[in-house]
């Protein structure tokens, strides 16, 4: 009965590769998010998405793209991975309105070699 799940938990890959991280929520929420937490533990929003609107943080490179096959899933695709992409990526979900609490997944630790 996991609320927000992510796979894989760990991902080690070479520079230049393309990879995906999957996220699923069973809470019935209409909005999902991707965050990046770097080595300094700073948690930064990358995307927020519901079935009507995708909001992209302007600092996110276009190598990163969210894909949502349905309301319960928001996958993160990363093209041409770079060393600086190494971080922990968290998926989260919430009801959209009004600024409700967010439920986070366990995180995916991405290491780019």
């Amino acid at each position, binding site marked *: 009965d996991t609320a927000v799940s992510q796979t894989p938990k760990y991902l080690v890959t070479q520079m230049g590769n393309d990879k995906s991280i999957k996220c699923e929520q069973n809470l019935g929420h209409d909005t999902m998010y991707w965050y990046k937490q770097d080595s300094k533990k700073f948690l930064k929003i990358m995307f927020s998405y519901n079935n009507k609107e995708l*909001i992209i943080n302007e600092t996110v490179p276009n190598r990163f793209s969210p894909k949502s096959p349905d309301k319960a899933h928001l996958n993160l695709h990363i093209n041409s991975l770079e060393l600086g992409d190494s971080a922990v990526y968290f998926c989260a979900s919430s009801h959209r309105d009004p600024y409700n609490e967010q*439920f986070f997944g366990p995180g995916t630790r991405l290491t780019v070699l």
Partner: protein
Amino acid sequence: SQKIEQNSEALNIQEGKTATLTCNYTNYSPAYLQWYRQDPGRGPVFLLLIRENEKEKRKERLKVTFDTTLKQSLFHITASQPADSATYLCALVLNNDMRFGAGTRLTVKP
């Protein structure tokens, strides 16, 4: 641009004491401010939400205050326990997105 600052990177206190963590923000005041707890290797977990028209919110040993004049929220843990050791993050909503502070790592020593 909006900035969120948490008072210190780390805070060490003795078991039984009250821990007080500070979250300051610049520019305009958010309608809501939230506090989360994060344990190593895990995602943040929601603790409390306080609205701009609320001065104080309590939940068991936790208390949050919100001062829109000072642009500051204080997070208190009373009768602290070693199990309270974690990183605590404040977050506010900006342009429909949650923005987090860098967090304060709290260590409660027995």
